């Protein structure tokens, strides 16, 4: 069936070097001496370890539980004993450690009870759930959890499902071999994706340098009577990039700011489809993958490798030549030298290339940019690498974003064609990670500011609430005192003329409602006075009537004396305490 293909701009044609590893069929790699399984093997949350040192595990047993929706579970690749859950160096350009489960195989390779289910009986959400539990992630290299991509956009109808079998990077042949040997299961896996996404069309893109794979896939599609279209796309690096393949097959261009589902298209790798089928129909979680061993080795070949196999042990199967001085994970365009030869194979490992100075001669030193524009012509995203290079180099990150640095897929075409041998991609990676770091810092600072302001706001509110409470209590207290004083005054009124002391608390009670602070003070004063009054009679409470009479006499005399002393001057201002103790001490105060 003929189909109108689109084109992407740019691209390069590096020597493919694929034939070396295509001569032999897929072999199963023997059990390694130990397996180091990193817990964080996908984009998203880091799975939590659910085993500890000393545990016996079976092949396919859960060892890392998915953390959140965008996260995928991790499983024991073979049966054996957990030696430790510890930090180990990762196959990552940083050479840093991450948490790994180390398993010593027992040689039995005994599976857990696998539960093959009738696929047709499952609801869509159950399928997604199972894929997450089985640790199915994008095996094309991005390792995005597959179940997270299997929900169609609510607003945009799903037009095309693109299956990526292009495998454009030189040296790598694992997808090619997978399609040749296991096409049927790949197609069945694509069927699962199709059922979940309900696209109008399913397009399987395969580069035209893999006619055997395309033929095998066509045969499988026909045999299963699926309406999938196997399309051979021109061999041009990076036709296997998801965005490029979508462009070639559908003509749609996916910007960095959007997801492909927003444009009604979704893309999966063929190996992902294969593992999805194994997970659903056979109950087998992702514990192994195909890895191409090639480069400076005696016998390049594709192996089915358990996740966690140390790379040096694995590469030994292909017989690395004496001058091998490193291992490149991935292809020569986008891959990187692993920091240690003993790092484990992970779900993202599609190829190991034995590195030698002969195979990859060291680059001559970098020369200044001559603004020839070759990089702009080679860029498959129609970016201007030389401009981004200037700004990255000058650490002018705002400008790099203006030139759409986040649309860069780091394919390496620009570095490949640069006549000055400038490591352009390294500059872009530097700029991107700096921008991300700044973004993180900015977010943290914003968060801290919000929390700080909230704390201040809360403290002020609490203070106000406390003051209000105090004021209320004080007002209540003052009112009580006033009532008491009024009662006392009324009682005293029977004996002698009440002094104006009774009027004062009433006044304060009225004031209390106006000014809480004043009220508090007034209340405190009233309390103190009450205490004093209460305390004073206590001294005389237990006395005989004769003694009391005596005291009364003395008091009366003293009173008379003091009255005559400051007559006229301060009599009116006499402290309210003195009238309380005037002549009428014989009447016992009701308050004692």
């Amino acid at each position, binding site marked *: 069936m003929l189909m109108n293909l689109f084109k992407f701009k740019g691209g390069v044609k590096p020597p493919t070097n694929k034939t070396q590893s295509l001569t032999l069929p897929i072999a199963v790699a023997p059990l390694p001496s130990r397996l180091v399984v990193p817990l964080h093997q996908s984009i998203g949350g880091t799975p939590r370890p659910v085993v500890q040192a000393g545990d016996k595990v079976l092949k396919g047993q859960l060892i890392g539980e998915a953390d959140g929706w965008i996260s995928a579970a991790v499983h024991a690749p073979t049966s054996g004993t957990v030696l430790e859950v510890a930090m180990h160096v990762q196959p990552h350009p940083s050479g840093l450690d991450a948490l790994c489960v180390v398993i010593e195989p027992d040689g039995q390779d005994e599976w857990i009870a696998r539960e093959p289910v009738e696929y047709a009986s499952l609801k869509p959400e159950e399928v997604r759930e199972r894929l997450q539990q089985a640790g199915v992630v994008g095996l094309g290299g991005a390792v995005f959890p597959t179940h997270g991509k299997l929900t169609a956009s609510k607003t945009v109808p799903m037009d095309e499902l693109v299956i990526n079998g292009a495998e454009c990077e030189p040296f790598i042949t694992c997808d090619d071999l997978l399609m040749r040997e296991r096409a049927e299961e790949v197609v069945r896996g694509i069927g699962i994706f199709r059922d979940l996404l309900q696209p109008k069309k399913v397009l399987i893109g395969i580069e035209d340098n893999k006619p055997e794979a395309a033929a095998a896939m066509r045969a499988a599609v026909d045999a299963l009577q699926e309406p999938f279209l196997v399309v051979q796309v021109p061999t041009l690096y990076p036709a296997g990039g998801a965005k490029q393949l979508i462009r070639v097959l559908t003509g749609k261009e996916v910007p960095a700011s959007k997801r492909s589902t927003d444009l009604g298209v979704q893309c999966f790798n063929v190996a992902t489809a294969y593992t999805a089928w194994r997970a659903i129909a056979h109950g087998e979680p992702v514990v192994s993958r195909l890895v191409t061993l090639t480069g400076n080795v005696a016998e390049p070949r594709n192996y089915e490798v358990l996740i966690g196999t140390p790379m*040096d042990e694995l590469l*030994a199967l292909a017989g690395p030549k004496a001058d091998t001085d490193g291992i490149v994970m991935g292809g020569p365009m986008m891959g990187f030298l692993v920091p240690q030869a003993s790092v484990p194979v992970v779900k993202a490992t599609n190829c190991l290339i034995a*590195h030698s100075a002969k195979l990859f001669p060291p680059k001559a030193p970098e020369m200044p940019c001559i603004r020839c524009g070759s990089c702009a012509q080679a860029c498959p995203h129609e970016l201007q690498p030389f401009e981004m290079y200037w700004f990255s180099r000058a650490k002018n990150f705002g400008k790099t974003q203006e030139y759409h640095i986040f649309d860069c897929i780091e394919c390496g075409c620009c570095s490949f064609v640069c006549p000055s041998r400038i490591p352009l991609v390294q500059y872009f990676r*530097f700029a991107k990670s700096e921008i991300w*770091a700044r973004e993180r810092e900015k977010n943290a600072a914003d968060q*801290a*500011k919000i929390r700080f302001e909230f*704390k201040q706001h809360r403290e002020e509110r609490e203070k106000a609430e406390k003051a209000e409470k105090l004021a209320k209590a004080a007002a209540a207290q003052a009112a009580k005192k006033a009532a008491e004083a009024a009662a006392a005054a009324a009682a005293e009124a029977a004996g002698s003329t009440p002094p104006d002391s009774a009027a004062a608390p009433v006044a304060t009670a009225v004031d209390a409602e106006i000014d809480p602070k004043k009220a508090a003070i007034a209340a405190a004063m009233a309390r103190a006075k009450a205490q004093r009054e209460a305390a004073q009679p206590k001294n005389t409470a237990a006395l005989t009537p004769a003694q009391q009479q005596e005291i009364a006499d003395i008091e009366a005399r003293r009173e008379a004396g003091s009255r005559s002393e400051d007559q006229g001057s301060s009599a009116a201002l006499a402290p309210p305490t003195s009238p309380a103790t005037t002549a009428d001490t014989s009447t016992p105060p009701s308050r004692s």
Partner: protein
Amino acid sequence: MELLLAIAVMALGAVVLGAALGYASIKFKVEGDPLVEKIEAILPQTQCGQCGYPGCKPYAEAIANGDEINKCPPGGAEGVQRLADLLGREVKPLDAEEKPKQIAIIDENTCIGCTLCIQACPVDAIVGAAKQMHTIIAQQCTGCELCLPPCPVECIRMAAIGENIDNWKWKYPVVEIKAMPLKEAA
């Protein structure tokens, strides 16, 4: 007569333009001080008080009023540089030692649950209650060290945030990455 007309025209123009300016000054009045906000956006919001002000905003206000720009150790030399760029001032070396970013860690065995650190934390990054063990929410901790002095049992220490795969950054491409020799495959 002509003289009067000219004066009248000029006066009219002055009144009209004056009214327009007056209207604009009310209509387009900028609330708050935009400079303070810009300065505050550069400050790292650790709220640590190492500058001598009770928080980042007061320091931002102080800078706007002419205080030195090199008093913020968490902002580092880069922060000073950005402030200098913003304000057109000269870059000065930081007046304190620049520390790597760190977070506080409570030794939970020693903690007596006094809540003093909780009260001291400017961003509410400590959880706990009276006579209960306290702990730090690592994501929210700004590393301001304000919880260290109030702790009566000295159970809080600061730990630098190490490099991990999540926060690792690609380095500026100057040094060529050299291949490690492959371990002798048996």
